[in-house]
């Protein structure tokens, strides 16, 4: 099972859109895929029209095993399951902090799912916290969407520094440009600059499009609601690129 985290320190960068569409495309290729919604806002859970069971909560999540098994839900699409998020995930940091091995708990939890799924996607909450550290340790690949602006660039640099300081392999971080408006000079300039500075920059770019923005209305992955659009095409290319890294 390959574990892929979609992470950004900043909110509103197209993280959930990427998690939903990429996991959909992975499953559409016939691989058993689980999307794990770790964000207490539960946007990907909402996109798939799923509600977590009343009994499910943070404590059950960190216990793992049958508590997770019982709460995984099938989406409307073959091979794609989702572990829904709960609002109580906002306390995930505190709950993790109380554990002995507080930085690697997520990795342990996911071990149980090893033989059931080919791909596991994590839709992560923004910020840099204990849960983020757990994600960094658990993931094989960390995908960071980057809006080509100066501010995004700064947070990306901060992330790299954090990895180095905490002795986590920053080689598993890959970025792609998200919500790209090719007519904006600033976007072009930033993309050129970041690309020249090195690091793992994926070639595929996700354009700023209304069909991606409207996912909240359709509540469907973009390849389902607008299969022939250039956003779908962009996600397909992005997925192929990520798949080749696995």
């Amino acid at each position: 099972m390959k574990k892929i985290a979609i992470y950004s320190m900043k909110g509103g960068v197209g993280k959930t859109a990427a998690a939903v569409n990429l996991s959909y495309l992975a499953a559409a290729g016939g691989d058993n895929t689980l999307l794990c919604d770790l964000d207490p806002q539960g946007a990907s859970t909402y996109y798939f029209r799923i509600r977590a069971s009343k009994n499910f909560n943070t404590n059950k999540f960190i216990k793992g095993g049958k508590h997770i098994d019982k709460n995984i839900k099938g989406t409307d699409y073959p091979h794609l399951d989702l572990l829904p998020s709960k609002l109580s995930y906002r306390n995930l940091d505190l709950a993790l902090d109380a554990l002995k091995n507080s930085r690697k708990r997520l990795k342990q939890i996911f071990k149980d799912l090893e033989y059931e799924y080919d791909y596991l996607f994590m839709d992560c909450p923004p910020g840099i916290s204990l849960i983020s550290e757990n994600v960094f340790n658990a993931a094989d690949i960390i995908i960071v969407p980057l809006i080509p602006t100066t501010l995004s660039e700064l947070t990306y640099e901060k992330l790299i520094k954090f990895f180095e300081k905490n002795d986590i392999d920053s080689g598993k971080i890959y970025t792609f440009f998200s919500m790209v408006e090719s007519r904006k000079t600033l976007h072009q300039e930033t993309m050129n600059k970041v690309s020249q500075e090195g690091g793992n920059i994926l070639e595929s770019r996700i354009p700023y499009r209304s069909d991606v923005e409207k996912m909240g209305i359709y509540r469907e992955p973009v390849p389902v609601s607008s299969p022939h659009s250039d956003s779908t095409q962009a996600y397909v290319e992005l997925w192929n690129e990520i798949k080749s890294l696995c």
Partner: protein
Amino acid sequence: MTTPVNNSDYYTLPDGLSRIEFLKKLANDHKIVLDPPQKKKEEFFDTFDRRLYSSNLVLVKEDNSYHLKSLTDGRELQAFEDTKKLSPKFWWDFPKCSLRAELKPLSSIRALLSLAKIERTVATLKVLNEDKKTVLFIFVKELVVISDQRRIKPCVVVQLKNVRGYEKEFKEFKSYIEELGLKNSKDDIISAAVSNQGKYPLNYTSKINVKLKPDMKGHEAARLIFENLLGTMKVNEFGIKDDIDTEFLHDFRVAVRRTRSALSQVKSVFSPEDTDKYKEQFSVIGKATNELRDLDVYLLTEDSYKKMLPEDLRGGLDPLFDKLTQDRKKACTECAQFLNSKNYKEIISDWQEFLHNESSDANSAANSQRPIIEISKEHIWKKYSKIIKQGRKINDATPDPELHSLRIECKKLRYLLEFFTSLFPADDMKTIIKHLKVLQDNLGDFNDLHVQQESLKKFLSSKDIGYDQSSSTVAAAGGLVSVLYQQQAVVRKKFKENFNEFSDKETTELFEKLFSDN
């Protein structure tokens, strides 16, 4: 950790509820999305005795591609695209591919028959909850069997498939469906298709399949056995006439031989006149099919014969097998002519009449009214004692014909055990037959090797082949004779060992317990 729950349940519609009415009812009671139905034509293949089906498999042809699928979950195991339109009949007609390798041990020497052609329409329905989330899938499959342009009543299978995490909805929907009168069933498309068509029997077996009761009168039990054998003969006739594969004739002949054996061995259940008459008539059937079976056996040995020879000599056998193939063609036509003849048809209808007409039973016959349990014990015990006596006399110096004679006696005993097997404990009969089989195999191999040598020698001395141009043919056939001769000697050496096992204390005690009245 448990594997994800994957539930599929299959249902059939009750009489009086059509597919359309069912769909309307669903749409009325639930929030449902219907995907456009998909139409597919399929053809199902299996051997006459359903070897794939008994391994829980099915071979499906769609357009030009063949798919080997699991019957339980429809999973595809192997596939082959017949781009060259080979229309394969046997596994060896497929070009080298994994489907061919999979079919080889399954179908063996049997042909893959087209059992049914169907047209399948699958409609996918999604049941939604208040969030418009799919909580359950329904596949409504309609199968129409197309047979000789006649359309037979469609068969509808409703499959429910759960979505993980929505088990409650699945359970509720199942009770809803059951309230509508739908009956739980298996996704047995092939039997549904085939039983609708009814062209071939579903549970064919060449084994004797009769349930006798110990106190049945001798003539009653005999009639049941004979009727069963006659049934086997009849269902195999078409396969011999159409030359589908060699097993039709084989099973047909085994039934004929068993009939003849029962007529001679189980004496005095019918009048002597009747017994003699039918013995004679079944011998006519046997003779008319001898040549074709002999040729079938030779041709089936082609590969193993060739493997016995060094590679450069193998080609020398080709003229022999070419000649045999030609002869077989002729024999096959003659055999089909015989089965279509007035003579054969009269023998069969006369025999059938006799079996059904109880008044023709001769009360005068000594065993006619005796309970079958007594008769069967008596015959089996007598035959067994004879074999033991005859077998003990055989040593290294005994001439071959005496081994052949013992082989015949063993075969007779085997038939008796099979006719009456339902009268005795199944486990004991299994053990006895297992022991007898080892001895029979030894004697059978010995005989086959003898017959093969004789026919090769006959071939070498026959004038009509014109083998004189080819010394390689003489070399190959000559080489083969010596290999067969050596093999025969090895088989004979093993006889004593096999016989001792059959006549050991354990087997003797079992025979005594079951069949001896002392």
